[in-house]
């Protein structure tokens, strides 16, 4: 690569508007050179600057008694007591995973792991939210294979279990899949580190892999739409090396047990550029960096390439002056490159030298605090009204309800995901108390009696139909999943996946979803502590459903009191908690899509006050050991929730006999598959019935006893009946069958 002359045209090629180019000239008081143009283009990209989202993200509640670190750092941190904290974040790797599924997904996992261990935390669990196009789309099978193998290849090698997540399918992701990776780590309070470059004269140290030409402009790629030439962007996808990251993880944690360092940050998107400028920005300092000292994998790299490379498995450290040898000894022990490449300065300037010359000289604030912020216009899409219109009475009633029931339970969206989870090491580190497949993953925290429950969730059909309500539901449902496990939701991270924010309709979706999420967070007292925004999820001008994925983290003071979603024993009584929230709600339902080929109507209504009380009751019931299982009604409604409690058990399927909880006058298919918010299927020992009902009263939760666990069939009396073993088989085989994968 060669240096090229800078012009407004060149700036446009870098994704900078004419106005932004002018702003750069004003901030510098001169024209930028080629290297500086590259630096501005990545730092001001949507991906790094959050220029279109920033004003809306402020609407999230981010404080709370447990919050030790909110948004703005590499990961958020929450206190869990006994001097311990959890650090977590979720990040998208959508574009790279579509172009090159294995490496795209693998480096997504690698990136989020670094974000967590750079805070000083040891990662103990990952979850992934994956969204693909239609199961029968010609590219889907290839993408599923590649993404799952990529996550497995990276996570398994570094030794962090992938304990859960979601895999779903919709036509809207045909040309733009979503790969959202979440990691959680444990850290002692006194070992928390941040990405700050304070202390004038302190050395700036580069550690990890050598720098190559891979991933240049990854951040810029992630800030533009896709077109038919996207395949050509393959070279902008980075290549992961989980073995080196494992060494980096161990070396960093070893270093962090000393007090030789001041700050540390991973080189993620925009590599050396973002890590150096962001660390200086947080400390209000500047830096001087010599690119000749950067370990390099290839010859003849120019400053532009060195500053923009997104080579993986690299970190930037600011150490205390005079402690350089301690840092060097640790990284050399782990066979990693380590090089002092510069020092912290006090004048607020980022200066970069190469071959004895200054090749970039930019005020740190110009790239961070003075980056553009846009309040983009938003407008409700004209199609929204017609999308929301749905006449349930006009839907043809299926003749064989049992057949529809089996079809829903075995569609790839609902079917057993064992094909996926078997490829992930989900047991390593020996903390996993609930294996993948329940509402939430539950891990123990060694050395304490505590447990951590986690769930990732988003129903993007709901968000398409009403982003405000869909956003509320994403928060409520992930919190409910965690509460169903008996844990208290203590904080969340999110990946906000949307289309092109320059379109007012997309901006409206984005704003509305955030406002809905924020409202639910307030009602449930759950702060948002980290997250990421992924815009431009469009291919050939066609956008995805708005998909604000939420990863909820919950705390169990006593891990032994956790709950699972499956029935425990024959004879146990089955209840619906929150039965007064049942209603005919077909808008955006799975039934509507799978059986009638429609995404229409409005999502089910949410009552936040009810939601809060319901979840408090669930936690109380778990803590007092009053229930044997808890599973919320979500996709597929009452019938599918019941079926899941019967057949997802690791010990094999069990039957159940229940009454129809809906009024008889309601159409049977609507009763089975209506999706209701705030209703949970519980089971308890026969002798525990009265205690459970009494426990619900103070929370004003309506309880209805619907039936009993046991028998060969799953039977909704007078409505439909299926053999438990048959349904179990169809559900187990559905995923591989639906996608044409080898078993």
């Amino acid at each position, binding site marked *: 690569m060669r240096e090229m002359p800078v012009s407004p045209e060149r700036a446009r090629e870098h994704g900078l508007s004419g106005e932004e180019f002018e702003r750069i000239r004003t901030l510098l008081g001169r024209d930028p050179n080629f290297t500086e143009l590259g630096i501005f283009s990545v730092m001001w990209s949507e991906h790094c600057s959050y220029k279109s989202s920033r004003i809306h993200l402020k609407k999230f509640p981010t404080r709370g008694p447990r919050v030790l670190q909110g948004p703005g750092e590499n990961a958020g941190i929450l206190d869990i007591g006994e001097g311990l904290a959890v650090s977590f974040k979720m990040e998208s790797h959508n574009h790279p995973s579509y172009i090159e599924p294995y490496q795209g997904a693998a480096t997504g996992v690698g990136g989020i792991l670094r974000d967590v261990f750079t805070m000083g935390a040891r990662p103990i669990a990952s979850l992934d939210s994956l969204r693909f196009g239609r199961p029968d789309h010609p590219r889907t099978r290839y993408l599923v294979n590649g993404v799952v*193998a990529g996550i*497995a*290849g990276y996570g*398994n*090698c*570094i*030794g962090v279990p992938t304990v859960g997540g979601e895999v779903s399918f919709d036509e809207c992701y045909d040309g733009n899949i979503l790969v959202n990776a979440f990691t959680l780590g444990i850290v002692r309070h006194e070992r928390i580190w941040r990405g700050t470059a304070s202390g004038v004269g302190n050395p700036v140290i580069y550690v990890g892999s050598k720098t190559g030409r891979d991933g240049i402009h990854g951040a810029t790629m992630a800030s533009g739409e896709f077109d038919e030439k996207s395949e050509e962007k393959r070279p902008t996808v980075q290549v992961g*090396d*989980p*073995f*080196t990251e*494992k*060494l980096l993880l161990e070396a960093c944690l070893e270093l962090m047990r000393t007090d030789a360092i001041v700050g540390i940050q991973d080189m993620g998107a925009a590599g050396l550029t973002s890590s150096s400028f962001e660390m200086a920005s947080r400390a209000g300092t500047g830096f001087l960096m010599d690119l000749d000292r950067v370990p390099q994998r290839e010859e003849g790299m120019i400053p532009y390439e060195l500053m923009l490379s997104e080579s993986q498995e690299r970190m930037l450290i600011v150490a205390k002056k005079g402690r350089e040898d301690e840092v060097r000894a640790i990284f050399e022990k*782990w*066979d990693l490159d380590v090089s002092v490449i510069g020092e912290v300065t006090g004048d607020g300037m980022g200066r970069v030298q190469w071959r004895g010359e200054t090749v970039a000289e930019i005020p740190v604030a110009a790239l961070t605090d003075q980056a553009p912020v846009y309040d983009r216009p938003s407008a409700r899409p004209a199609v929204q009204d017609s999308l929301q219109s749905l006449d349930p009475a006009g839907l043809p009633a299926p003749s064989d309800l049992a057949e529809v029931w089996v079809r829903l339970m075995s569609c790839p969206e609902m079917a057993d995901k064992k094909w996926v*989870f*078997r*490829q*992930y*090491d*989900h*047991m*390593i*580190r*020996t903390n*996993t*108390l609930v*294996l993948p497949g329940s509402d939430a993953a539950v891990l*123990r925290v*060694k050395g304490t009696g505590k447990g951590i429950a986690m769930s990732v969730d988003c129903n993007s059909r709901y968000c398409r139909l009403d982003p405000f309500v869909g956003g509320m539901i994403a928060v409520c449902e992930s919190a409910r999943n965690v509460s169903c496990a008996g844990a208290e939701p203590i904080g969340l991270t999110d990946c906000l996946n949307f289309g092109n924010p320059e379109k007012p309709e997309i901006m409206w979706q984005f704003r509305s979803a955030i406002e809905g999420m924020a409202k639910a967070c307030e009602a449930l007292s759950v702060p948002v502590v980290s997250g990421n925004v992924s815009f431009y999820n469009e291919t050939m001008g066609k956008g995805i459903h708005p998909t604000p994925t939420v990863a909820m983290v919950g705390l169990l003071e006593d*891990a*032994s009191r956790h709950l699972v979603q499956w029935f425990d024993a024959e004879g146990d009584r089955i209840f619906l908690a929150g039965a007064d929230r049942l209603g005919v709600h077909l808008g955006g339902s799975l039934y509507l899509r799978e059986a009638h080929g429609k995404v229409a109507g409005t999502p089910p209504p949410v009552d936040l006050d009810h939601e809060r009380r319901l979840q408090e009751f669930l936690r109380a019931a778990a803590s007092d050991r009053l229930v044997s299982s808890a599973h919320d009604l979500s996709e597929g409604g009452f019938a599918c929730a019941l079926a899941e409690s019967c057949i997802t058990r*690791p010990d094999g399927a069990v039957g159940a006999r229940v009454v129809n909880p809906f009024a008889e006058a309601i159409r049977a298919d609507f009763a089975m598959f209506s999706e209701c918010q705030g209703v949970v299927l519980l089971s308890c020992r026969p002798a525990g019935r009265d205690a459970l009902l009494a426990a619900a009263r103070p929370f004003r939760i309506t309880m209805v006893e619907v039936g009993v666990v046991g028998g060969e069939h799953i039977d909704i009396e007078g409505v439909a009946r299926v053999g438990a073993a048959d349904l179990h088989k169809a559900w187990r085989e559905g995923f591989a069958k639906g996608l044409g994968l*080898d078993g």
Partner: protein
Amino acid sequence: MKAAVLVFPGSNCDHDAYHALKYVAGVDAEFVWHKQSSLAGFDAVVVPGGFTYGDYLRTGALAKLSPVMGAVKRFAGEGGPVIGICNGFQILLEAGLLPGAMIVNGSLHFVCDYVYLAAETSRTPFTGRIPPGSILKVPVAHYQGNYFADEKTLFSLEERGQVVFRYCTPDGRITEDANPNGSARNIAGICNEAGNVLGMMPHPERCAEAVLGSEDGRQVFDSMVSWLKERGK
């Protein structure tokens, strides 16, 4: 009684083995960095699972060259108990302490799942308390756990009672369906002729506590403790 848990670049079940030894079986355990060339003072050696050197070249092919492996060979040669789990088994194969090799799983996928093991011999230090015919529920997690050896080696392993565990159904039948990776003759674990070196693909350290879904793996560590105690360690 002190057990060494070896740590190579890329070991990742080292903490789990340490935890099972120290907090479940009650053995004094210590990590040993792969560049150490002595195992003086240790009574047992655990080569834990992981991805040493990223599995680059071949599983275990680089780890066998680490200085500590010379010490492991001497330790094993003197009759000391050595257990290699998963990648640890692969390393012992590469180092020549056990016969045969590992190839990629028949499914061509990584597999993490609970499997059942039929125990065939209690002659090793790690299976002394596991009567032959016992069935254990233990998880596997590997990409290259498909045990391979020529017919002669397989015959001699069986002839000399060196097959320690085979994959089986929950009721103990040795079937193809019960084999998670395509291993020859459903072999999940073998020992050397003397019986003091055991290699196994399944992870006993992951199922040593009931809260994790099975505590069958604990018997491996408890057996080791009994064996050492009987020898005054």
